[in-house]
């Protein structure tokens, strides 16, 4: 419980500082181009890592289970331009059905 609150507090504090630093500290000066080009790629790199680890990771093991089926269905839904909530919903339903059918 204490660990959870630590994460909540530090992430909130850090995010507030990040959001404010441009408008309050830098006062409208631009970021150096090299910094900007690295920062722009952080979100795609980290989100892809999260997709991979939450699909395949179980502790320190890599496993292919019902989650993989759920994510595959989600990818199809995204390709069909479904709204995010529907994407999440079909992924969960597909994984649950796969488990019912005996997939780990």
């Amino acid at each position, binding site marked *: *419980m204490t660990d*959870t609150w630590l*994460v*909540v507090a530090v*992430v*909130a504090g*850090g*995010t*507030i500082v*990040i*959001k*404010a*630093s*441009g*408008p309050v500290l830098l*006062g*409208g*000066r631009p*970021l150096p181009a*090299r910094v900007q*080009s*690295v*920062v*722009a*790629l*952080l979100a795609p*790199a*980290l*989100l*892809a*890592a*999260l*997709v991979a*680890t*939450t699909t*395949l*990771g179980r*502790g*320190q*093991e*890599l496993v292919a289970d*019902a*989650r993989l*089926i*759920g*994510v595959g269905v*989600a990818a199809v839904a*995204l390709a069909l331009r479904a709204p*995010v*909530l529907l994407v*999440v919903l079909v*992924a*969960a*339903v*597909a*994984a*649950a*059905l*796969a*488990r019912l059918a005996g997939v780990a």
Partner: protein
Amino acid sequence: MADDAPIRFELRRGAVTAVPLGIAVGLFGVSFGVLSATSGGMGALPAIVMSATTFAGSAQFAAASVLSSGGQPLAAIAAALLLNARYLPIGVSVAPYLTGGPVRRFLQAQLVVDESWAIAAQGEGRFDSSRLVGAGIVLWLCWVGGTIIGAIGGEALGDPTVLGLDAAFPALFLALLVGQLGSRLAVVAALLGAGIAVALVPFTPPGVPIIAAALAALIGLVRR
């Protein structure tokens, strides 16, 4: 008084434009509440407090997912803050258009999220701060309200794996990722990031592979 009229008009215009997005953000908040309350990551009250104080969806999901996979608090914090590093250039882009003293600018900056930033954009790098504030307030209310509904409802749902909720996390990150793949370099960074993370899973504690994937962003330094 007459001088306030255009500001109020833009405030209201921002708020009205944000309503359809607000519904989507609210539903997104519901899924954050449900996942945080059920998957053993966080619990209902911390999830609600986090939505109210952090107000950044993907970072919150990242922290919750690292915690639920048994990662260290430090790994959860690092993953979330690295994801939010994108608000540094976003904040810089709106900075010249925010008005008032440091306190007011500070508060306006907190209402910047991807969606309010997009609504406030007026083309050619210009932004309307009143529209930003109007949209930001609507989106914040929807995000926090959705989280409360999801967190309270989620606690009643039971075992997340039976419901397939563990597949909801990667599906959600995939949806967020698609919105970030605007350039070829972004696609390369994503593939590289995923590769680094998968390669490290067997050898490091949970959470560390995600932080290491940040190294993929260094390809931004390659001269084109």
